[in-house]
């Protein structure tokens, strides 16, 4: 029998989230424990409006001071039981404060264990590394597969993005070191693991002769959106289709002017053109890649607001994030 009282993990920065399933179908937050400097806040769960009437839990991952001071280390373990759904949110961008030396690295590690048919939506605010900061984070998703088949697996919709710092203070990718790793592992019934997807970015001011600014080619934000599993399938397909429909570079723009065909274009097409226009104004560069059952969307933009608007518009227009997780899932993108 499990202990009904919270037993906080002993180490600083450690946290545990355990979303259990009370039979037959009531998800319950069994554990949400944390230690300074980590703080977890869980508002009451929301019930979806659709026919599933699914209960979706939400947890805010907070840190004191809104970020990580040099040497801070966060280690969060999340366990999602069968069919449970969780939204992870942050409250404002995660600030990374300056580090006195290259050796003092702040770390954040999030490990998520997903049982079959569970789902995680982690659309956070961007990470904001200040001048001279040193930071590494890893997000590891262990997806348990029920049998040797791809059906009934868990679903993932996770966003990992980083901004150039505080532009108002003249910061433009002025940190010392930033590393972010996202990995999805398939865990088979026989105990074996297999790497399904890895997205590992490492920016270090000593790697190349030029500054990190030169390497970013005028982008103020760079991000990766990873989509996996049955609940995110439609969304992934939407990104892939939209990417294919982007206007060709160096081609003629035949759609300018008012030709007779325009009136027949359906509503979806009109919206798509509007998004393309806004995307061009905001200078969003993106690509969507279907691989190994996942869809990976990479994007960059010269302004943070442009990128935020683009991600939100895409997710809102497709609609399945709101449908499967509720409106709260998009709070960080407002």
């Amino acid at each position, binding site marked *: 029998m499990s202990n009904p009282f919270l037993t906080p993990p002993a180490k600083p920065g450690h946290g545990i989230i355990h979303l259990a399933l009370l039979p037959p179908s009531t998800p319950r937050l069994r554990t949400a424990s944390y230690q300074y400097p980590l703080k977890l806040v869980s508002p009451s769960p929301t019930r979806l409006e659709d026919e599933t009437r699914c209960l979706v839990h939400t947890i805010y991952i907070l840190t004191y001071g809104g970020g990580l001071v040099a040497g801070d280390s966060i280690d969060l373990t999340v366990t999602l039981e069968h069919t449970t759904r969780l939204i992870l949110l942050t409250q404002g961008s995660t600030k990374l404060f300056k580090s006195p030396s290259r050796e003092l690295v702040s770390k954040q590690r999030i490990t998520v264990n997903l049982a079959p048919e569970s789902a995680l939506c982690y659309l956070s605010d961007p990470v904001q590394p200040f001048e001279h900061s040193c930071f590494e984070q890893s997000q590891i998703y262990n997806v348990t597969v029920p049998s*040797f*088949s*791809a059906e009934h697996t868990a679903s993932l919709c996770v966003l990992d993005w980083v901004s150039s710092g505080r532009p108002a203070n003249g910061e433009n990718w002025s940190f010392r070191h930033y*590393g972010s*790793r996202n990995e999805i592992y*398939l865990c088979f019934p026989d105990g074996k693991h*297999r*790497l*399904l*997807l*890895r*997205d*590992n*970015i*490492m*920016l*270090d001011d000593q*790697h*190349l*002769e*030029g500054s990190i600014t*030169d*390497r*970013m*080619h005028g*982008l103020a934000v*760079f991000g*990766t959106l990873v989509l996996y599993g049955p609940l995110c399938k439609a969304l992934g397909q939407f990104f892939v289709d939209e990417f294919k429909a*982007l*206007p*060709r*570079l*160096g*081609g003629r723009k035949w759609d300018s002017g008012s030709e007779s065909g325009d009136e027949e274009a359906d509503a979806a097409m009109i919206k798509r053109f509007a998004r393309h226009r806004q995307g061009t104004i905001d200078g969003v*560069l*993106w*690509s969507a*890649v279907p*691989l*190994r*059952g996942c869809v*990976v969307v*990479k*994007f*960059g933009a010269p302004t943070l607001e442009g990128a935020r608007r683009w991600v939100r518009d895409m997710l809102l227009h497709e609609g399945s994030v709101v449908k499967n997780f509720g409106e709260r899932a998009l709070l960080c993108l407002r």
Partner: protein
Amino acid sequence: MTTASLHALLILSDSALPLGSFAFSSGLESFLAHNKQRHTNSHARLTAFDAFVEQSISNIASTALPYVLTAYDDPTQLEDLDNDFDASTPCTVARRASVSQGRALLGIWERALSTSAASTAPSQNAAKECTAFALAYKSAKPDAFGLQLNGHFPPLFGAACSALGLSAEDTAYLFLLNHAKALLSAAVRASVMGPYQSQAMLASSKLQACIRACIERERGARADDAAVTVPAMDLWMGRHELLYSRIFNS
């Protein structure tokens, strides 16, 4: 260096080796197309290309070199490395380039090089693993998750170099130099620079220093630690598909 390993080195660095590397620009063509407004004259284009070469070498060194060297050290891991490299390359165009060159290398190995493996024990072992991989690759079928052997280039290159008796140092240098050669050749054909200028850049001490620095940086890196160091490279590569007209495959 023995004459035997020098011989193998020269063969693997020869542009006549039918790997098809000349068909790929590693994002250069897309980079030029995206920045047309910014690079108004040929001088601006050349300066931008200069930075691009360095960034591209740095990025290929951080993403692929650990795989080359891990496969060189332990060719028995070839299949796992192939899976992990496949999982770590979320870019359609880069995957296409890697798989197509990897397959070409497998073909060359089977038809031409397999009989010329060096006689030392590690080389014989690597040769055995290359042949086994080539065999497994032919009968590879996707499993329930749609995963299968892909034949990615970097691990296979490492194993093949080991089989032919090259040193680890030479293997790393060769891998990056071949990348630089492909880039510079693409630059000539994309009319960024002339052939003499391209050779001058290839021979320059700046390029040598860049390659050496990248090798030094990746020394001892495990394949698990391979990372993208120039994220914009992924965008240029990924968006190559959007070019209205293109002369390269990547």
